[in-house]
């Protein structure tokens, strides 16, 4: 158990564990995301009555956390291991703790605590309640029961488990600097990521053309709106992600004032709310195909039908 400690081993172990517990192993998204939550495998799929159990790694970009690859704990892009369980199982905490056991973390030898941490993502009109899970004082997982996404009440409720892969790996390997991590046998994290960390930081803080970014934001917003008008939820959502990432870049470069910030968030949010509504309706029209209980699916199709307008 102590041998297989590379970051890659952690990922594989978690893949195996969650596969055994009925998750489909999805992949990182191919549009920039700030967190595993932003991947449509979570944002969109947590909406509506369809069962959904998925796990994937998400390289998550936080331009504001870029530190030129010099800070031992801070990254422009880190890796989240994301698990979504809908509906949240009754034994979800035990499942999670078992997953830690498979990573070689015996709770009797550690101090594991669930400390309140409520999650909110204003750009996508989402919030949930839950905890950050502490392992000997270190936050290793974000554990959230989704209550609302895209302004829509989640029913059933999904449980989201977001493991911080770098942190867990650093703990397991006893490493103090993220760049000293063993990523794969014989290859360090630094060898793979130090250069992009430096370059992305330099780009964000020194090189990025903020006026160009503002124009792109406007263009992505327009294009998302066009896709929404054509009732194409997935292309629309991709442009919403583009908006979100562009906003994060602008925010990191310090080009946005307090008041303008609220307005940018509001613009992304407006689009996200429309996309959420459209997603739910499009799944309904398809008859909620992922529901195993077809009779229940039929009931949901009726229950969620848009109310006919009164003449």
């Amino acid at each position, binding site marked *: 158990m102590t041998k297989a400690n590379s970051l890659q081993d952690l990922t594989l172990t978690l893949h195996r564990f969650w596969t055994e517990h009925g998750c489909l192993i999805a992949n990182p998204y191919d549009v920039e995301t700030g967190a595993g939550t932003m991947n449509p495998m979570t944002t969109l799929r947590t909406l509506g009555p369809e069962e959904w159990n998925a796990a994937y790694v998400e390289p998550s970009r936080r331009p504001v956390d870029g530190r030129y690859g010099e800070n031992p704990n801070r990254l422009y892009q880190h890796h989240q291991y994301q698990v979504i369980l809908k509906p*949240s199982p009754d034994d979800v905490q035990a499942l999670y703790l078992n997953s830690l056991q498979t990573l070689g973390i015996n709770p009797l030898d550690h101090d594991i605590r669930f400390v309140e941490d409520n999650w909110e993502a204003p750009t996508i009109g989402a919030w949930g309640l839950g905890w950050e899970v502490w392992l000997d*004082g270190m936050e290793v997982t974000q554990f959230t029961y989704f209550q609302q996404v895209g302004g829509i009440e989640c029913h059933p409720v999904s449980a989201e488990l977001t493991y911080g892969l770098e942190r867990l790996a650093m703990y397991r390997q006893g490493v103090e600097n993220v760049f000293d991590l063993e990523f794969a046998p014989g290859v360090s994290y630094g060898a793979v990521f130090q250069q992009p960390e430096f370059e992305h930081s330099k780009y964000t803080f020194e090189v990025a053309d903020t006026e160009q970014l503002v124009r792109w934001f406007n263009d992505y917003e327009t294009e998302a709106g066009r896709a929404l008008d054509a009732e194409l939820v997935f292309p629309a959502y991709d442009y919403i992600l583009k908006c979100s990432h562009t906003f994060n870049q602008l925010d990191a470069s310090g080009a946005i004032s307090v008041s303008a910030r609220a307005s940018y968030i509001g613009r992304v949010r407006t689009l996200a709310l429309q996309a959420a509504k459209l997603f739910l309706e499009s799944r309904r029209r398809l008859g909620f195909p992922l529901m195993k209980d077809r009779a229940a699916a039929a009931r949901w199709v009726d229950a969620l039908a848009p109310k006919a307008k009164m003449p």
Partner: protein
Amino acid sequence: MGLEEVPAQMIQPAAEQLRQCALQFCKNHQLGEVQVRSFSTPRRLALVLENLPDQQPNRTKELKGPPLVIAQTPEGEWTKAAEGFARKHGIDLDAAEIRKIGGKAYLFVSRNVAGQSTGSLLKDNAPNWLQQLSFPKNMRWGSYRTRLIRPVRWLVFLWNGTVLPLSVENVQSSRETRGHRFLCETPVALNHAKEYEAALEQAHVVADPDKRKQRILDQIRELEGVQGFRVETEVELLDEVTNLVEWPTALVGEFDERFLELPPEALVTSMAVHQRYFPVYDARQSNLLLNRFVTVRNGDERSLTTVQQGNERVLRARLSDAQFFFNEDRKHAPEYFLAKGGQAVFFQGRGSQQDRGFRIQQLTERIAEQLDFSPEQRQQASRIAELCKFDLQTQMVYEFPELQGVMGGHYARLLEEPEVVCRGIREHYLPGYAGDALPQNLQTVPVALADRLDQLAVAFSLGMIPSGSADPFALRRAAQGVMQLLLGLQLELCSQDLVAAAVEVLTKQQNPDLETVKLHQQLAGFLLQRQRWQLREQGLAHDVVEAVLKGEQTQPLWQLRMAQYLESVQSQPSFKLQVEAVLRAVNLSQKNPLPPEFAVNPERFAHKAEHALHVVVAALPDHITSPESFMETLAQLEVPITRFFTEILVMDENPETRHNRLGLCQWISAWSLQHLDLRELVFPGE
């Protein structure tokens, strides 16, 4: 009730709600002196009711029937209404009494009611206690509809040794509770309710929060004894930690001494706020922070070294981070950060953080002038203003926003700025809330005022005016701070002048297209609201507060002193007479206004009473130095005014004579309103 981990600060209030429900239940059902003990941990809320009787006592229940005039015919026969009442309650009308209520006779019957068994009362009532539980923020889980603070995972409901039914969604009550999440693998079956606390103790759960807290404190005191240091057990942190663990084990951790060069506030924030560690101090030198900490593990002593090392690692990472930022920041002089502030927008359309700094400095210099500062004090105040916001651009404050001002002061000290400047950078944020401390040095005060006034002027100029509960930029607190400073430090500054200066400095710098008169009024009105609140908060009566606020005087300190003085003389009959005399002139003048520039012509006075009043009025002082001197002047006015109104008719037929007399009234009215609006005063007995 077994739950997934409930947020620490919500546990005690919930336990108390349940306890109150139980007490009310015992009272309502006359169950006697029952002892209600409440237990709570992050994973459970529980009540144990001791000394419950098996049975509720038998009672006599009194039933009120129809009025006698309806229940009986004039002949004394029972009517249908009376028979119906008897049938409904299954009683005999012959046993009925007649009682008078409010002079009217009613039919009354009493009935013996057998006490119910306590078990069945519990069964029927206890489920409501759970339903009545309210939390500030609830959630749903799985496919269920219930909303609660966190998911319910088990329920135990025992009447002595009998399980009573209770359910929340899919969870049914049983006799099985759970012990510590890791230290007790199997459910714990209770044979009897009275075993609760002891059984949980066996299962590594200290269910009584007071005992748990005491256990933590005992462990900490023991560590203090062994290690010879002092642990700061701040109450809120101790309560939070108590509610984060079921089986506490305190342990000591260490961090590298080199981190002690960081400001203590940064270390304490990292430990206490971010990690919930107790900071450790030297036993003899109470302010000397040591490179140790105490944390409380939720578990036993097994692998304590692993836990300690893990926590040390986390703290080391946090402190290395802080150290990194600290070192980076120290590579630059404040001027570097001030220039950097030129790139950071403060409010869109109102310039950068650097522009903001310039405005604060200009405004500070103006206020310092009004406060009659010496050249040296002025120079120091100006330096504080110049440096008060530079730390917003430092990495430390970016990472630890709560350390704004603290870091600026610290960096300034390292650069050997004068102590009064370092302290000012830190303290210009004071007061942070109602009742908070005020800046120690006078040189800081104009900066504290300028910062708040500028923020208000900027936000209001953009139409961001707080309404209802929406106040995202905490503007109420800013205005409140201005009033706390003016009144708390007894500054003889007028709000009108302050607002005018803030608006002028902003307009000059940013040249925005503004209606300055309207902006000025809005700001003054906003400050006035906070002033009103503050005066009322100090216990001053409504009428007195309105009287001083509706005058033309806008010096809050003067207004406060006047209000306090008014309250002290309000019950004196002589004062009432003086006010009434002046108000006769005021009211007459308000009803018959003359042009404001109207000048009284003494040569037109024909009557001695006119002359006598004119002599006093002409001598009215423009500037009133104290409330006492205002009252003396009022007293001087009383006799000539009364004589004036008794001996002559103001509304003379000749317009020139009339105007000249009204002119005297207007003079008095204008003079008195300059200071306060006496019409607002309400005298005892009115």
